[in-house]
């Protein structure tokens, strides 16, 4: 085939391009992921029973703020990474800001508590449940964000995969927060933060295979 024939073919009856399609799809995918994660939390795991107490509400708010900050920042960066060359001019620093903030708060919280309480503050009652739930709930949101990123044209597949995993982990944590009754900052930093990082690493590993175009 001659290149000029290909060019002629592609130019015949050209349709306008949809510039906002990729970003719109990403928003849609994140929204769908949130619905799935909330659905699993509400109908599968069950919402925490002490929902109405002030302490529960405060910690729910902290968990949600942490997860929503991660998802929001990750979506902004992922929207850039979905475009060819989007990995230029991106500094990863802002992305880790929510993690730094929660670790800082966790350190203060540990510092002001007696050493004897540390184990319990970090491990909580249900660390294993958290360790398993967040990655498992993240599976469907991850599929959603990969589907969205494939509508774009990422040229750094490891990074785009990692960000898709980060979105999914954050979305999953939004759902899991409704169920989780472990209320301590070190617990959130270690188990929420850790599992979300795990999701990000899984995304980075899968990105090159799933996102090729």
């Amino acid at each position, binding site marked *: *085939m*001659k*290149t*000029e*024939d*290909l*060019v*002629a*073919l*592609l*130019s*015949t*009856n*050209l*349709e*306008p*391009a*949809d*510039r906002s*399609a*990729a970003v719109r799809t990403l928003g849609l995918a994140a929204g769908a992921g949130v619905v799935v994660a909330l659905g699993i939390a509400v109908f599968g795991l069950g919402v925490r029973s002490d929902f109405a107490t002030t302490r529960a509400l405060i910690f729910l708010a902290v968990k949600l703020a942490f997860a929503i900050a991660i998802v929001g920042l990750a979506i902004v960066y992922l929207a850039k990474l*979905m*475009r*060819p*060359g*989007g990995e*230029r001019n991106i500094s990863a620093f802002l992305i880790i800001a929510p993690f730094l903030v929660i670790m800082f708060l966790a350190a203060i919280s540990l510092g002001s508590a007696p050493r004897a309480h540390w184990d319990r503050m970090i491990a909580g009652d249900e660390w294993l449940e958290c360790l398993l739930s967040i990655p498992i709930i993240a599976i469907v949101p991850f599929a959603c964000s990969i589907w969205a990123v494939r509508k*774009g*044209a990422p*040229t750094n597949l490891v990074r785009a995969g990692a960000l898709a995993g980060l979105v999914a982990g954050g979305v999953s944590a939004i759902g899991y927060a409704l169920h989780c009754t472990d209320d301590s900052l070190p617990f959130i930093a270690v188990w929420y933060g850790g599992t979300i990082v795990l999701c990000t690493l899984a995304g980075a590993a899968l990105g090159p295979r799933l996102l*090729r*175009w």
Partner: protein
Amino acid sequence: MMTDEIELKALMLASQEGDAAAHRMLLDRLSSRLRAYYKGKLARIGKAGAEAEDLVQEAVLAIHLKRGTYDPGEPLTPWVYAIARYKLIDFLRRSRASRMDVPIEEADEVMARDDHDAAESSYDIKRLMERLTKNMRCAVEAVKLDGLSTAEAAKRCGLSESGVKINVHRGLKRLAALIAQENVQ
């Protein structure tokens, strides 16, 4: 170099709006630059010109299919360079030609030279078209090869007008995927 960027960007913006003549001119001008870029890269690992043409066509198809991802607020050259380099790396990985590293250069490199000495690629569009589904093949043939309007194509293929548009888009995507498979050796 600067005038290139300005002219090509103007063509790209018009092409995003659906201006076929601008799109054709854009792809023509980019293909001669891509040809020079790929010939230079492949020469370094001892590959011939026909393979450069395969790569040019892969990149042209990618630029066409992904043109919606170009953000008018950004310069065009780095966008083209990112696609050109991505397709080169993908090609090298697929053909296992070498473990050559493709360093990140200045994006301008992709616009540096023209090469109008086009060989034919190894792709046979007719043969590739046979591997599309019936609806995709009919829609692509009617709209893209025979230049029929969407309404005429819909009548010929027995599809709705939106069905024709979807099948043209999916058909071109499928062609790009088939082309990418061709080079696996």
